[in-house]
């Protein structure tokens, strides 16, 4: 195991095709480095994430899950933020039942140009997860 | 050599296969009309396909050009003539143009060539590679460059010794020295001129020493240095192969300069220099990059932010035009300038100097119209008689213009103007 493994928690990001994934792309374009064990699965809208997917990720060894939500920019509907919030609340309930730290699930709106915000989020999340691990 | 005669009919003729010509051809073809695209070079893609990355997004030039280029190459509505020249265009009544196109022999049967490069390996000749601006050699049997379209070999007959080595190794027997010039008589309904621009030749400014000082290069040469298909294995001084660490950019070489006959601003040099500076900071983290400028023209969408980003990265910006350059014995260069903001004459030593050369008109399209009906503007670009409302129209009805043929432009502007030209051409065809 090398040093980078110790610092880096495994994080799964659910991004959205039209809004937050472009921001993550731009983070790379601008060489704003973020922890190396961040993996992204892009879906159409953040309010489509199922709790079972998140729980599955923990089961398989992810330390944290981050939902890069559309926020008010969502091309589908303004209710997106609210709906995504409900998913998070529901999943965190499930996590508590299983004695897991609910803070291992985070959500934040990432607009299509919010690369820096995304990177900040990843760094702080990674720090939190590495510490608590 | 003899010339064979052929005939063909298309809806539109697009002259010039640079990014503007490609975009225009594609737009027209996508709406169901047939296009003949004539390019005088061996590959389409123009100057853009040779660029490293493009400002202000820093996408690689190839990543943006190649999909367009290959889409064109495959398009059933588009025919491409590379290595070909339009000789004459005449008007045969409304919506009827007759063009005479000279197709130069490639000495390779395009359809049969697989681009395997065996001929290139076999060819014994080595001459300066024009696509690397002479910084490295190439063979007389060669594929123009890695991402050329068509990616097919060609024989440079002027430098060929006719030794036959290429023919012996060619697995598909596609090399054919019996090819001759072909003249095509083409009938079309509309013409789009996308003849592009020329770069200023810095040999015209002896005080910068280009040509005699080997470590003074043009920005296009630097562009090649930074491209993935670079001439050297990394950025090196052409004079002696040393890693450069103090690089200077001389802006307005041949632009905004009445003393060389080009008083206008070339619109792209500031930005491409800033882009190259950013790329150099990445490629050579130890290097200092200084940009000598008169005014920084970072005017487009995201440009000023890009300029400020370069300042943030540590690129030096000095207001002052370089007066003269002298060479030291070790190949380093002394740049003499007035640091305008302090009002003092300064001399700075750099080990590589990049001349950010300007944009000059390509006056080729003037000769297509033998009756001289195609008007020029004061700077010898194609005149836009109604530049505000019909920017793609020329002085000849049915002949439209796209890209830098009307003046200096960056890539986004070229693409927009090509869009405009194709919109006009489509309605012109619809009305016929």
């Amino acid at each position: 195991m090398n040093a980078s493994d110790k610092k880096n928690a495994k994080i799964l990001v659910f991004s959205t095709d039209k809004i937050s994934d472009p921001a993550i792309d731009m983070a790379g374009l601008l060489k704003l480095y973020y922890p190396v064990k961040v993996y992204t699965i892009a879906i159409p809208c953040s309010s489509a994430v199922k709790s079972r997917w998140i729980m599955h990720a923990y089961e398989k060894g992810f330390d944290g899950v981050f939902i890069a939500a559309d926020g008010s920019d969502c091309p589908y509907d303004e209710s997106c933020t609210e709906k995504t919030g409900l998913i998070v609340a529901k999943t965190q309930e499930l996590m508590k039942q299983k004695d897991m730290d609910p803070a291992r699930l985070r959500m934040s709106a990432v607009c299509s140009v919010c690369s820096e915000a995304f990177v900040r989020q990843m760094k702080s999340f990674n720090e939190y997860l590495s510490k608590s691990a | 050599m003899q010339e064979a005669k052929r005939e063909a009919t298309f809806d539109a003729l697009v002259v010039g296969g640079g990014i503007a010509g490609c975009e225009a051809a594609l737009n027209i073809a996508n709406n169901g009309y047939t296009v003949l695209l004539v390019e005088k070079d061996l590959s389409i893609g123009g100057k853009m396909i040779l660029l490293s990355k493009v400002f202000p997004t820093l996408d690689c030039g190839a990543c943006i050009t190649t999909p367009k280029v290959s889409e064109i190459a495959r398009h059933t509505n588009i025919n491409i003539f590379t290595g070909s020249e339009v000789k004459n265009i005449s008007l045969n009544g409304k919506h009827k143009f007759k063009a005479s196109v000279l197709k130069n022999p490639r000495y390779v049967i395009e359809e049969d060539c697989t681009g395997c490069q065996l001929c290139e390996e076999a060819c014994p000749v080595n001459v300066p590679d024009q696509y690397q601006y002479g910084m490295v050699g190439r063979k007389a049997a060669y594929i123009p460059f890695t991402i050329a379209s068509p990616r097919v070999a060609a024989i440079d007959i002027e430098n060929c010794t006719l030794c036959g080595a290429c023919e012996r190794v060619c697995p598909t027997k596609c090399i054919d020295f019996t090819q001759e010039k072909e003249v095509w008589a083409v009938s079309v309904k509309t013409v789009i001129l996308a003849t592009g621009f020329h770069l200023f030749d810095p040999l015209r400014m002896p005080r910068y020493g280009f040509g005699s000082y080997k470590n003074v290069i043009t920005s296009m040469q630097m562009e090649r240095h930074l491209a993935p298909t670079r001439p050297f294995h990394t950025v090196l001084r052409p004079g002696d192969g040393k890693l450069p660490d103090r690089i200077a950019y001389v802006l307005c070489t041949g632009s905004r300069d009445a003393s060389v006959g080009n008083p206008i601003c070339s619109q792209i040099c500031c930005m491409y220099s800033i882009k190259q500076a950013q790329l150099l900071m990445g490629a050579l983290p130890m290097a200092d990059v200084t940009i000598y400028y008169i005014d920084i023209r970072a005017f487009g969408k995201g440009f000023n932010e890009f300029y400020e980003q370069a300042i943030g990265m540590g690129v030096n910006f000095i207001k002052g035009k370089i007066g003269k350059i002298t060479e030291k014995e070790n190949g380093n260069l002394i740049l003499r300038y007035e640091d305008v903001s302090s009002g003092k004459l300064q001399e700075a030593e750099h080990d590589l100097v990049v001349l950010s050369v300007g944009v000059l008109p390509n006056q080729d399209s003037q000769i297509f119209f033998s009756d001289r009906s195609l008007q020029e503007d004061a700077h010898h670009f194609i005149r836009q008689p109604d530049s505000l409302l019909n920017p793609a129209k020329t002085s000849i009805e049915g002949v439209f213009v796209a890209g830098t043929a009307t003046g200096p432009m960056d890539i986004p502007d070229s693409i927009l103007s090509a869009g405009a030209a194709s919109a006009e051409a489509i309605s012109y065809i619809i009305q016929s």
Partner: protein
Amino acid sequence: MSKRIGVYICRCGGNISDYVDVDKVKGAIEKEKDVVLTKTTMFACADANQKEMEKDIQENDLDDVIVASCSPKLHLTTFRAVTVRAGLNKFNYYHANIREQVSWAHSDDKPGATENAIRVVKAAIAKMRHAKPLKPIKIHSKKAVAVLGAGVAGMRAAIALAAMDCEVYLIERNHFVGGHTAQWEELFNSEETGKNVISRLFHELLLYKNITIYTGAQVIENAGHIGDFMLKVRVEPAYIDEIPDPLEIKKAIEVCPVEVPDSFNFNLTQRKAIYRNNPEEFPEKTVIDIKNCTRCGECEKVCKSINFSQKEKIITLHAGTVLFATGFDPYTPRENEFGYSRISNVITLPQFMRLIALCDKKLIYKGKEVNKIAYVYCVGSRQPDGENKYCSRYCCTAAIFTSINVRKKYRNIANYHFTRGVRTYGKQEVYYNESLRMGDVYLQSFDHELPVVYQKGNKTLVKINDILTEQRELELEADLVVLVTSMVPREDQSTASLFKLPKGRDKFLKEIHMKLRPVETVIDGITIAGTCQGPMNIAESVNSSLSASAKAFSYISKGELELEPIVASINKNLCSWCNACYEACPFDAINKVDEGSKSYAVINNSICKGCGMCLPVCPYDAIELITYSNREIEEMIDMLAKD
């Protein structure tokens, strides 16, 4: 079921291979189940490689193809086309992003990046094991375009589209067309005046029977989608019957007691609550500004055509595509920004341009003749402290061109330009040259140290640390200070929000890609043109508007459009109609079906946009989104998580 999957790993000319050990990635996935072909390539997108892929697909009888390279936003469609040419369905293609999200994002950690890339590609393989060919959903598209905004860009687009035989609805918020161009007299890069340009466009518009102009009109609702946008448009009446008696109207204007600042002259002058179009504006009509009208009834007494019973109308339009040309607002300086609104002789460039139009022989402002004019550049753009970091592109040339005209029009004018570096790009340099030769004085400040406009007694002074004069502090007493204001996005963005158009960092509407798709937005079927996208001059606006017209035309020219078949699907065996998904769907795409005693939900495929909002709300997990099924996502997670 076993599949035959081919994987291509792109070096991207070093963009990827400089940081990711591409050969290691290849080695790691070669032995994955179902993978029958693995290749690395310098440029996957190059034509030669595309041809090679086609050949590979056919020769190796591949079922699915994966290219691991740049972001799918760039080349997903490119490679889908390759698979289609080789005889596969485009949904048997997957684009794994190992550039933006791997090699570039982690170029500080090469082994880590390589590891990451391996996982990403393996996840892609896992997903493709379940890929099935899908048929696109075909929809009819209306050969009609709604053009929003009748400034120069919108009008020109309307003409271009009408010439391509489209039905065009030109919708303008104001009662008159022409936008800001109507307000300018002389225009740079041209011999024409704004009036000429607008008049030429308007009269050309009238020639087309397939153009309908709505003025005083605003889109208030948008339903539908590409192919058929259903727009509700509110049209404000003029409160005057058609073709009134000109004399009566003249009288009506005279008797109107209400005076309000005339926005056409940027509030330099006043107009009545009943007012005519300016000579530069069209259509030629008179309207009542109902917001400011006091209903005193004076006008009704002198003019029979006044008709307050006219009602605003709501009309419904169907358009296959929408072209946005909603324009810009000139920047309004903050209170006391360079003395604005505090010092009486500080005005903005647009105001100054109107002032010139209004002053004939002598340049008079507030009763005093103006000789010495100071122009302060970059007001509202390139702000060191403010939000607007962008350069507004047109203002240098506009200010210089105006200053030349002032010199030509009036006697004894001296111009002083307080700049931050003159940006008269391209041929516009000629104006800068001309102005210098006329003797205009240019001063330049550092970007972080702006000139100061202040008052001393009754003098207005401008002071600058001039970098052209060895950074000396120089001062000028000016008769008039003109703030060269930038272009900013429209303050009222309600229409853009209706269509959910994204904005860039500069808050202007954002295109998908400056070079690849410069006039398209991420919202299918909506194009943008002109200054709603960013600062531009007239010629540039028109270029973009023609470009957008060509693009808009291509959406609707064939009468039919193909939509992605990515929609939700409901397993009716698991469903027992609880209403949750119906509530969650923002598009009303879910209907209830009763089958005997059982009720369940079904999806209307042509309405479903595939957002997936219904997925997590189902208590029975009966809904899956095509290509995002539980199996696909969870197996991807398995591969990403695997050590």
